[in-house]
């Protein structure tokens, strides 16, 4: 169904302006600018202020959207699925236990090919009971089929949230997107951000055509998601066709994410590396691989290390799903040692999940680069410049052949 962009007027802003806000508010403001149809919310720390901002924006008439205060995250996402199947642009946010409760509709959303955008205010897993940041929730669902994009700064949260809708709704993609912002550090961290002008966002979003592929519309009745598969007949082949299409779209997303970031940069003058950011990687003999807000401290540490003559750089992953294998292989092509810093654990391999994924990239590089897994920042722990100096030192040791046989727990002695 095609729907023209509604007239501006309730929009948050019409010309660029600067404000100071936390990441949760930045996400909410971005959502208002894309003029969603339906929001569904349920509060959970550290996401709560995000949905409070959404509610306020609606209550104040600054955003014209339906807001459904559902009785739990499971219904939150289910309401959005219904709305998206009826052609709506939708958004929600959750984290940790909320995501776990939501899992049943969550892992169904990509299969339904619904372009839902969800902020994942990342939170560590329970138990031990914890309400603080960490990537364990997002990492746990990394095979559910969502696009997952990690932000580094509050500004990036705002801009990425806007871009996420374009990516999700792209005809070659049609997949849900998690915009991941680190619990505590980005959710509550206040920073000065520049708001894009509403007219510019409207133009950037373009003609609305969200639900062109499948719909629950009495004007063109169809069955959505009939039973598919079985042990014989054409069922399993049909199932395979759907799955293959989903995988292809995930790969298409690598291109689309890049194009959307380029377009955004051209229009608004703010550029972010779409898949992988190379920081001071020219002539680097070793690289740190980071994800999310920790990258700020890592960059400060690298700057200092460079000043001290160390040839170290950073490869920051922005797009974690789909995993940018090619971009990473290129970024890491010349290094002799890699230190991967994870904010969650991979229980099965006794290492960080990003580390584990990166091992596949090394295979693509065609040479066994010494690599170490660092795990830090769990349950809200801070990853400071000092921690990264330790990481750099330990990574340098890899160059001499000192490869640890297990993960290095960064905050162990804090």
């Amino acid at each position: 169904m095609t729907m023209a962009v509604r007239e501006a007027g309730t929009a948050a802003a019409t010309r660029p302006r600067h404000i100071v806000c936390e990441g949760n508010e930045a996400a909410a403001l971005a959502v208002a600018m894309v003029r969603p149809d339906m929001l569904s919310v349920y509060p959970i720390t550290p996401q709560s202020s995000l949905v409070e901002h959404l509610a306020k924006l609606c209550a104040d008439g600054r955003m014209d959207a339906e807001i459904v205060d559902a009785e739990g995250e499971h219904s939150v996402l289910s309401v959005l699925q219904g709305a998206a199947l009826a052609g709506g642009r939708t958004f929600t946010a959750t984290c940790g236990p909320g995501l776990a409760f939501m899992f049943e509709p969550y892992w169904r959303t990509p299969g339904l090919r619904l372009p839902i955008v969800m902020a994942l205010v990342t939170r560590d897993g329970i138990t031990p009971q914890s309400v603080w940041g960490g990537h364990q929730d997002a990492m746990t669902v990394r095979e559910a089929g969502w696009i997952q994009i990690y932000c580094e700064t509050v500004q990036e949260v705002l801009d990425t949230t806007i871009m996420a809708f374009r990516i999700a709704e792209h005809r070659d993609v049609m997949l849900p997107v998690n915009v991941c912002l680190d619990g505590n550090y980005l959710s509550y961290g206040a920073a000065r951000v520049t708001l894009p002008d509403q007219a510019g966002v409207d133009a950037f979003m373009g003609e609305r055509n969200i639900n062109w592929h499948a719909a629950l519309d009495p004007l063109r009745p169809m069955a959505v998601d009939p039973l598919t598969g079985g042990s014989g007949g054409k069922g399993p082949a049909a199932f395979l066709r759907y799955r293959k299409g989903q995988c292809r779209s995930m790969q298409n997303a690598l291109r689309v994410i890049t194009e959307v970031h380029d377009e955004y940069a051209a229009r608004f003058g703010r550029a972010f590396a779409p898949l992988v950011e190379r920081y001071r990687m020219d002539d680097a003999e070793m690289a740190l691989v980071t994800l999310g807000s920790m990258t700020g401290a890592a960059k400060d540490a690298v700057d200092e290390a460079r000043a001290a003559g160390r040839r170290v750089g950073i490869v920051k992953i922005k797009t974690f799903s789909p995993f940018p294998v090619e971009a990473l292989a290129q970024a890491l092509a010349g290094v002799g040692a890699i230190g991967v810093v994870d904010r969650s654990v991979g229980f099965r391999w006794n290492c960080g999940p990003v580390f584990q994924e990166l091992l596949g990239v090394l295979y693509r590089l065609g040479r066994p680069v010494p690599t170490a897994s660092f795990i830090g920042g769990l349950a809200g722990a801070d990853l400071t410049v000092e921690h990264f100096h330790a990481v750099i030192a330990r990574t340098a040791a890899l160059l001499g052949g000192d490869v640890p046989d297990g993960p290095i727990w960064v905050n162990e002695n804090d």
Partner: protein
Amino acid sequence: MGHAYATIAFEAARCDGCQDCMRACATAKCGSDDISRARLQVLPAVLPAGQPLDGGAPASFELAMCRQCGDPRCVAVCPAGALAKDVETGVITRNADTCVDCLLCTVGCAYAGIAPDPADGRVAKCDMCDGAPACVAACPTGALRHVTTARIYNEVGDWEDLFAPGLAGCQGCNSELVMRHALRRVGPDTVLATPPGCVPGMGSVGYNGLTGTKVPVFHPLLTNTAAMLAGVKRQYKRVGRDITAMAIAGDGGASDVGFQSLSGAAERGEEILFLVIDNEGYMNTGMQRSSCTPYGAWTSTTPVGRETKGKSQDAKNLPLLMVGHRCAYVATASTAFMQDFYDKLDKAIAASKHGFAYLHVYSPCTTGWRFPTERNIAVARTAVETNFVMLWEFTPQDGLHLTHPIESPRPVADYLKAMGRFRHLTDDQIGHIQAKVEENRAVIAQIAAGAAAR
């Protein structure tokens, strides 16, 4: 063809032989108080029981009157073309001008439906008083009823069946009946959710790219039907389109794992028509227990063993819980009472345009409850006649009202013995169920009395 008509039904057990009906008929039709001229004859039964009268125990009173046959023999034998079936009303009419008084119709009819009026010797028969039978109005005991359900079937016959033919339900399945009737009534501007269970199991959402439904239909999760529909409905409302968001769900999904989303949607007043087909268990997956399964019932997870015999807890009263949500409309229904069901469907559709409408249809399951396939409606009726199932409706404005009160309910054992899932019950268990029926009746009566007192 395919037309159904109103009829006059006679329940011999209620008749006390007062003959008010005959007086009313004689007055209405002949302006006379001579009851021998009435076109229905209530006769005190005087013949003994037993052979050769193989009809079983005699009722106290018998009735002779025209049945307004579908294939009337009186018409077939009339040489004058004086008798005809009125296609609109179904009444067999006689044209007094062309009738030649040959009496052949009286030998054609096997029901004593047409006979000479003793006053003039010309044949006369019941003409249903133009749709308002005087006899029924005069009957003080309710033994005579004017059954007008046919109107619904005729109307329904004109609506499109929005399910494809060939849904693969079990033989004699009541759910298919409920689904087809309900969706026909609701109409094509509908988005239908059928969570996993018998309804999609018989192919309504379809298999491998084929669909069984002519309106947009989807499988929600077992757990999120109400929430997904809420999203669909709100989005359409937002863009100014009036659709009916309808669920046809099973009792298991609704009362157990899907109850949270149901409760949430009801509390928020989502504009949904939520129809539960209560076959008292997870029948599609092999007849496991749900919280709507009644006490004592065999299911594949409450087997009959040495230690326990069937389910050891009472059923959750889901419709009453929905009353607790103060939904815009809540009602229970049964396919043995289609007119009642249709009335409630109409109200539920209307309510779903401004709030949450909940319809709970009791649906005997031939396969899971273990009774012969042709007994479905009889079992459904017995459930109501024993008060095992009570038919009522609720709105926040008018409270709860019984729509088909049973004045002298039959013992619940009559219901229990109609099916295999209760075959093992001990007398104690039957006593427990009877007591629960009484308790439930008292609870409902109390709520209804509260409503009446307002």
